[in-house]
């Protein structure tokens, strides 16, 4: 399996997710990533990206969010870097599962989905950047 990686640069604007999706589709086609895994990775990245765009920055200015995706063997590794305020998604409180419609806590749902869909999610603050690394193994069918 060839080891290829891509680097996607997104602006801090929600509509950038269409470009993200296109880049990931191309990556999946080149690296034989199954459609379901592609969607899971796309969702995990998109949830974290939406979160960064909505809450990550103290100013109204332009920022760049860097996304690196690579396949090595049967593992896809995703790294997301942003220069927003420090935010550790692992410290975010999980919403309560199995709840009635009235009690359903909607905050934190996106990060919860990302954690559940990926096999690993890690965070570190490096200089002025948040660095999130996620890994997803492609299960043999």
């Amino acid at each position, binding site marked *: 399996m060839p080891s290829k990686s891509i680097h996607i640069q997104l602006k801090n604007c929600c509509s950038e997710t269409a470009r993200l999706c296109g880049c990931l589709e191309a990556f999946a086609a080149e690296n034989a990533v199954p459609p379901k895994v592609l*969607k*899971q990775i796309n*969702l995990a990245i998109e949830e974290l990206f*939406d979160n960064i765009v909505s809450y990550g920055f103290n100013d109204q200015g332009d920022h760049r969010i860097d996304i690196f995706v690579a396949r090595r063997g049967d593992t896809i590794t995703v790294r997301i870097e942003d220069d927003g305020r420090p935010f550790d998604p692992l410290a975010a409180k999980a919403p309560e599962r*199995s709840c009635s*419609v009235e009690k*359903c806590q909607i905050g934190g749902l996106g990060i919860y*989905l990302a954690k559940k869909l990926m096999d690993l999610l890690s965070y570190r603050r490096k200089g002025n950047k948040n660095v999130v690394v996620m890994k997803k193994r492609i299960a043999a069918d």
Partner: protein
Amino acid sequence: MEIIEDNVQGRHVFRLVGRLDSNTSPDFEKKVFAAIDAGADRLVVDCEKLDYITSAGLRVLNKTAKRLKTANGAIVLCAMEDYVREVFEIAGFDTFLPIVATFAQAMEKA
């Protein structure tokens, strides 16, 4: 994404085509709430052509279910592909949103 609205046997039907994410959810929310404001209280959401959903889409469905509950209405979702269904299950939304296999079952249940 394309949102096709239809009225079938007294049910307000939404057919979702494509991706329900943070870009498309506001439009879906607007359309659902306009329908409820206009008196629709039995909703069927046909997910047969829904490829992808994020927490933004789930949020709209949660708000809709809450609103319909106070109005004694009903919302039923149907025909989800495996991947979309998995997202609903992980989020725990299958515990309070009725999800059935076929459109016919949804029409019966709504």
